[in-house]
């Protein structure tokens, strides 16, 4: 068991940091502690898209590049600090498509240098990704171009989940992209709603949804830790709060005011 500040210490300048999609379990509770350390030059990997947390890290000036299939605030519209940073050329973009992000993580999970993927050929995504390769499918009689996606090996994965046990096993339910991120990463940091006493691997029903402690570097308690995002099976998204952020963050000043206000009021109303 660690606290949020101890987890934030793993997020060092220049690392590749993987973050989950808004509905999978975003550790919003860690956004403040990371920003407080002012860790710069982060290379973000959004699995497979980013939202509020990505926008806030960019707004705080911590981000060097973003590999993602999209960044948005969902119903609250475009991600204002991301959009501004793109326009101003402040962050490097590695625009992708969802299954390419998954393919890169899968390559790392398998210890393979790359994964092949259909699609992509003829898109401008491919044209702008010098790290992707096109080869002729060696299984075909000739022709049949196919794209190879290199392994994505994040230094750190960070997410929020409903529970962990005292042994460091984390219950991720059917959100298996969280496991895929951990498999691919050197370090995995998890915040949870609660810590349970029983070993989650001891029962086959709970074990089915467990990311084993083997892949988990640190676990910290953070009740309502996804807020204002919701957490599946736990609590809904606070759309009003995300809309409040979206309005505030239209300007750099509004963003700074919102974040300053969040520091004093980190908990949901």
């Amino acid at each position, binding site marked *: 068991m660690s606290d949020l500040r101890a987890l934030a210490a793993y997020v060092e300048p220049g690392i590749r940091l993987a973050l989950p*999609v*808004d*509905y*999978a379990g975003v550790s919003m509770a860690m956004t403040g502690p990371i920003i407080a350390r002012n860790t710069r030059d982060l290379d973000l990997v959004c*699995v*497979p*898209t980013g939202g509020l947390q990505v926008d806030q890290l960019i707004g705080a000036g911590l981000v060097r590049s973003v590999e*993602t*299939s*999209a*960044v*948005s605030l969902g*119903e609250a519209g*475009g*991600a204002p600090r*991301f*959009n501004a940073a*793109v*326009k101003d*050329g402040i962050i*490097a*973009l590695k*625009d*992708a*498509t*969802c*299954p*390419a992000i*998954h393919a890169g993580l*899968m390559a790392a999970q398998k210890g393979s240098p790359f994964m092949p*993927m*259909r*699609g*992509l*050929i*003829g*898109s*401008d*995504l*491919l044209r*702008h990704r010098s790290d992707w390769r096109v080869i002729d499918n060696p299984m075909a009689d000739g*022709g*049949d*171009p*196919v794209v190879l996606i290199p392994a994505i090996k994040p230094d750190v994965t960070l997410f929020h989940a409903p529970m962990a046990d005292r042994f460091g096993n984390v219950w991720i339910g*059917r*959100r*298996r*992209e*969280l*496991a*895929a991120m951990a498999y691919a990463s050197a370090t995995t940091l998890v915040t949870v709603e609660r810590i349970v006493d029983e070993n989650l691997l001891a029962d086959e029903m709970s074990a089915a949804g467990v990311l084993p402690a083997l892949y988990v570097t640190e676990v910290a308690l953070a009740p309502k830790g996804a807020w204002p995002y919701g957490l*599946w*099976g736990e609590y809904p998204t606070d*759309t009003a709060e995300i809309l409040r952020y979206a309005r505030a963050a239209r300007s750099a000043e509004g963003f700074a005011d919102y974040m300053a206000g969040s520091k004093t009021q980190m908990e949901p109303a």
Partner: protein
Amino acid sequence: MLLRALKQQAGEKGPRISILGSVEHNFFTNGSAELFDCAGQGRIDAFFLGGGQIDGHANINLVGTGDYPLTPVRWPGSFGSAYLYYVVPRVILFREEHTPRALVEKVDFISTPGVSDPGVHRSGGPIALLTGKALFGFDKTKPGFTLQSIHPGHDLAEIKNATGFRFDHDERPDQTMPPDPQTLELLRGRVYDEVAETYPDFAAQMRRDIEQPLSHAS
């Protein structure tokens, strides 16, 4: 959802529908990769795809306007389009805004192309485009769109002015058939309820938009 609601009213088993982020409508258990795996396995028949810009070759731009990467207007990004558009057999494009800036001659950035060169593996692609003003079909051999019908209250001249790409059409195009009352009731009742689970604000907004003209009329 409408098809499922209609079929279930008729006592039949409806199609499976997945809404990302929904619990009730989520029958996936393998994380956010499963939708794409499922499509790759050929298990997904149809998919709806919007676009910031759509051009006459059915190329889709979900990234932004102007020169990439310094796009003055940035949209969220390509999501799964650069895969699903290739492997889902029936992709229906939609764009409520029917203007020359939305339906363009050539998109500024190809998130995913409407057609592929011969020899490129492509089991899917666009079959239609639905806008606030009209319905088009897509013929990949030309490649290009053909006007199928115009929604009530609009005409061919207006469609031509509002569309940035050239398209084929009959001299006197059909009018789009409005939904019958039973279908409309399902759409505005059960389907909204189901959409509201994942997109509460969107569903509430739609309800307000519909109720306003109705109350004006009464």
